[in-house]
């Protein structure tokens, strides 16, 4: 199956800064790909180079198998972008803005599609409101609607939920999942790691213009995820008996254990605590977090995949 997006040695050199350094990547049709990295890592430059906002220095970009150096226009009919910066045209209403966007993509007015998006993004009541009268969160949602109104097959969401409240963010996540079910490919950048954890099928980590890691999210979480177990005791424990892994806190009332791939499991530690007749009273488990993995990869640990 032709990938939705293929990058080969994509490089962008500004005067003194290499924003993208020979980035190669394939994103399959119908997947949600989260591109993660710190500010200035190259995420937005990468998206810009694909969407026609940044002039690449070298390398190849293929959208749906079409090299953009050969045909830079046709593949764009199937691409949508939610830019990081909020923009709006103050001369038009929400509905007019969406109709204009449909038109740019060669489509006649399709109010049914517009209504569907307005409902999904909780903007129905604002359909005939001038865009300048929208709140920041509403403007952000309008950007999402504009990116989707022409039914693109590949959507770039560059920080799509910045400034959007929690409830609506979760609604958006549901909508993104629906998009994937319909076969849409989604490339997502976000500073909410929880968002990437929730949505992504695969994760790419970029820093300094270099793609440090690309991996299936579930496999990455299994490979690098660390779960923290905290076992609380009903009475102070002076020292941990032999065979019980972990760290005892200063007052002897809690045992902390970090479960790492290849090491003993939390369940084994718990069993050993019971076997040693420690006064186990309670258990807290902090699941593996993508955020921790991102920090470790950015610090140079266990990348190169």
């Amino acid at each position: 199956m032709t990938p939705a997006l293929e990058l080969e040695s994509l490089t962008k050199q500004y005067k003194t800064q290499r924003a993208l350094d020979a980035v190669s990547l394939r994103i399959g049709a119908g997947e949600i790909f989260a591109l993660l990295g710190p500010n200035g890592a190259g995420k937005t430059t990468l998206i810009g180079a694909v969407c026609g906002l940044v002039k690449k220095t070298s390398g190849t970009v293929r959208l749906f198998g079409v090299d953009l150096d050969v045909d830079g226009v046709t593949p764009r009919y199937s691409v949508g972008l939610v830019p990081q910066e909020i923009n709006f045209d103050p001369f038009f209403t929400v509905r007019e803005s969406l109709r204009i966007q449909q038109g740019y993509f060669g489509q006649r007015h399709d109010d049914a599609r517009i209504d569907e998006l307005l409902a999904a993004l909780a903007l129905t009541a604002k359909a005939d409101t001038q865009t300048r009268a929208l709140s920041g969160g509403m403007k952000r949602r309008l950007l999402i609607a504009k990116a989707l109104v022409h039914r693109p097959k590949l959507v770039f969401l560059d920080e799509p939920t910045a400034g959007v409240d929690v409830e609506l963010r979760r609604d958006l996540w549901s909508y993104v999942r629906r998009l994937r079910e319909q076969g849409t490919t989604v490339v997502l950048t976000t500073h909410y790691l929880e968002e990437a954890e929730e949505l992504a099928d695969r994760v790419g980590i970029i820093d300094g213009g270099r793609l440090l890691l690309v991996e299936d999210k579930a496999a990455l979480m299994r490979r690098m995820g660390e779960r923290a177990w905290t076992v609380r005791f009903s009475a102070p424990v002076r020292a941990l008996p032999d065979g019980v892994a972990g760290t005892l806190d200063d007052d002897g009332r809690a045992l902390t254990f970090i479960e790492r791939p290849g090491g003993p499991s939390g369940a084994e530690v718990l069993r050993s605590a019971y076997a040693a007749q420690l006064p186990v009273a309670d258990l807290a488990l902090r699941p593996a977090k993508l955020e921790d993995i991102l920090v470790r990869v950015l610090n140079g640990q266990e990348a190169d995949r």
Partner: protein
Amino acid sequence: MNLWGARTLLMKEVRRFLRVPGQTILQPLISTALYFIVFSYTVGAVQREVDGVPYMQFIVPGLVFLGIANNAFLNASSSFFIMKLQGTLVDVLVAPLGPAELLFGFVAGAMVRGLLVGLLTWGVALLFTTAPVAHVFTTLLFLLLSAYVFSVLGLVAAIWAEKFEQINFFPTFLMLPLTFLGGVFYSVASLPEPFRSISALNPVVHMVEGLRAGMLGTSEGSPLGLGLLLGVALTATVVAREMLRRGYRLKS
């Protein structure tokens, strides 16, 4: 070719300026009407005829040209530059709109405004004098070419400009002196030397002469004016298209 996309951009541009008619139509119309009234009743009172035409009638083509040139330029430059500032230019850069579609949308939209103001200026003039059209084809040709040329120049200025100040550079330092010294309110033929010869270097003189020839039928026409307009139109089109194709000052 994304014809529907180009049409959408054109319609958007027209709707944009129609949303603020006081600023985009009425204000320029009042300015040119004031020019007409003041010059007609001051200069016209002294010099009743120019080239055998009543002064009031003589200045109509120049004022129509002025309305077209200023408004076509302003529409293209301000609309495009504001899109750059607001970030909404992203919408058209990401869309399947090539240089030809972008050029068409912005330029045609600006031409509509320029021609609308020109037409209304002519309408205002009809309240005061008769303003017949002697040669319809020549008149239309000059009207359309003038609107086109200044629309494309406005687009080029907006692509090039990085600050508002730069947008105003062209109308303030180039268009204003060239139009006021371009024979809009007087006949260049009546100037003494060396001013007559110097004026011949001003392209606006020939553009105004061409339109005047078309509307008033005072001369055989202005092949030089036509040639200049065509030359500027072609050059500006090539420059604008290339800027859009390369993403000059539009893409990082």
